């Protein structure tokens, strides 16, 4: 492979193949490292694996491709506005299923922008929810004893629990 390569192929943790452009891969340090490895290695047969499942990797790559032009060249304010709108739409997907995976992937791939966006989306998701709704949507077990629960109710009179 020569350095003029424009896209590389990666494997998801489920073993599916994905293509990612060089400029998009620059959004993530680990991806960039893999890219360099591929570009400067003589052993071209091996396809690098990213420890992210296919469903999530599709989204991550989609995000990278969208943000790559701005990240690499620095764009105007109107582009930034447009990108913000796009981010909002992007996170409107059936986020509950894969939001957690996106968070983990962004963390693992050192993608600050996506990590920020996913954290904010998770926080926004919680707004206005009761305690048990939060537990349900985030799959968290209630490990408080009933006495502790009572105390919490007294401490947080503004909270709705059920």
């Amino acid at each position, binding site marked *: 492979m020569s350095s003029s390569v424009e896209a590389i192929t990666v494997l998801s*943790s489920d073993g599916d193949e994905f293509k990612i452009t060089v400029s998009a891969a620059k959004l993530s340090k680990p991806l960039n490292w893999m890219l360099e*490895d591929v570009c400067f290695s003589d052993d071209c047969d091996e396809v690098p694996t990213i420890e992210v499942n296919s469903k999530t990797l599709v989204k991550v790559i989609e995000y990278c491709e969208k943000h790559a032009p701005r990240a690499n060249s620095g764009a105007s304010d109107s582009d930034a506005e447009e990108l913000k709108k796009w981010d909002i739409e992007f996170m409107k997907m059936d986020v509950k299923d894969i939001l*957690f995976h996106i968070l983990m992937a962004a963390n693992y791939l*050192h993608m600050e922008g996506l990590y920020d966006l996913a954290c904010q989306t998770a926080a926004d998701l919680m707004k206005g929810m009761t305690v048990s709704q939060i537990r349900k949507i985030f799959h968290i077990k209630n490990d408080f004893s009933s006495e502790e629960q009572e105390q919490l109710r007294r401490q947080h009179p*503004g*909270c709705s629990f059920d």
Partner: protein
Amino acid sequence: MEKTPSSSTSRTKAKAKDSQMCFSGFDGMNEDLIFNVLSRLPAQSFASAACVSKSWNRTCNRVLCRPKLASALSLKPSLPDALKEVFGKILSEPIRPHFAIANVGNGFEPLMTLRLIRKKLGCCVPIIVSVANGIFGRDALTNELKEVNWNDLLNEMNDEVPINEGIVMTIGFLPGLKVDAIPLFRQPTLSMKSAIDKFVTDVKEYSTSVSRCSFPLGILLFGEGSTDMKPVMEKLDHAMPKDTFIVGDERGRVAYRSGNDSGNGYARTGYLAEAVALVFAQDRDRSPGEIKFHVALSNGVLPMGDKYKTASVRTSNEGTTWLTARREGQQEILDGQRIIDDVSNELANLIQFPDLYIGVFKRRKLSVGSEKPRPRTSITFHGIESGDEQYLYVDGVGLKTGDVFQLYHSDRNAALASCTRVSDELKKIELEASFKNLNGGASNATCVFGGLIFACGGRGESFFGRPNVDSSPLLDNFPGVPFSGVFCGGELARASFPVNGQCEGESSVSSCVHVFSCVYLLMSYTPSQ
């Protein structure tokens, strides 16, 4: 943001394998990630998140481990709209309110305001609503610093009292402290003196009940309407140790509500109190770091002419005092007109006629606790209302024949210079603390996290010729630190008042009720080592 997944450091071309990414939710998630998400929550969702699970509860406590103040201002003419705006701002971040103070214009009914705030914050939070002469702080929507002094409108519009709408609200989270509102009640059968005694006892009892100490760290005091706060301040000044701060607004209209869990047994809501104290006491159980309060006073009056001794004193029913006086060392009795003439001679060079006061010196022996009685001089100010061929008319009571006083006038340059001095003084709070703690790194450094300002209603933009002078000592030193301010009817603070050369042998005398001043209360926090 913490991002150190072990996998990212390896540059190997790993084969597909079961990764740590196989999980079903936030339960097993890295705590830093949850920390990041939870610290973005608004206050109410944050409270819910703290009840989700033990690990989330711990993380919430980590997010909110330092004390915090939040304040916002709105000039919306409708009370619900204005409240919506300020709540939108002050509850937009994680915070657990331990107290709330709302300063409003006379167009917002205090009891109604109180009710709406309570509905939002719940019944455990002590709340004080006070009608002020003006407010300043950062706008809830634009974050722009706004200063409104409703006194200025009053002058333009003659007799008609204009209706002023606006609110500045401050809430605080003070881990390690307990805060509650304690009223000063006066039963019809009781004298004011015994009512004040009872009030001081209540404050001490509250403090004893929540901490190891019978004295609180400090008191924010809000006087109601016509209540004469001078004896209240005097009594508190005697009863409390020196390092207990007492600051506040002498004249407002106050509504309050004590916290529910305080069990202090006072009537919980009321209009009828003569004054309300928001008492800050050390919590017996928890003190993760140290919260400190700092008080500074910017003075705005200058002395003029000779000293006088009152020759005759009469007190009217309306709470004013009529007096005649002699210049010290002279026999001739001067009426009101003669004293005013003296003033005019002294001030001949001033273009704008200032506000005039007499400062009455009192010397007496004080004993606090087991200390030996020691003589101390204090100064009390009374505004000069007018003078005629009989008397000089001043506001307030408590003068006696033979009292020594000095004439004072408000002065813009003195006030400006004093603001600069206060600014230098405040700068030292963080500097000195970090000097003491050279070994503690940046995370252990003392930082100022909030402030409250009580400025005289006569100050503000029309006095200084430009806005935000009263806020400048805070703005200059602590940009970004939340604070709120009011223009009051009388600034309360225990402070020493400089009287260089006017009082034999003393460079300053004590004073509790100030005129033309601006009182700063700052809160700082030093994490435990």
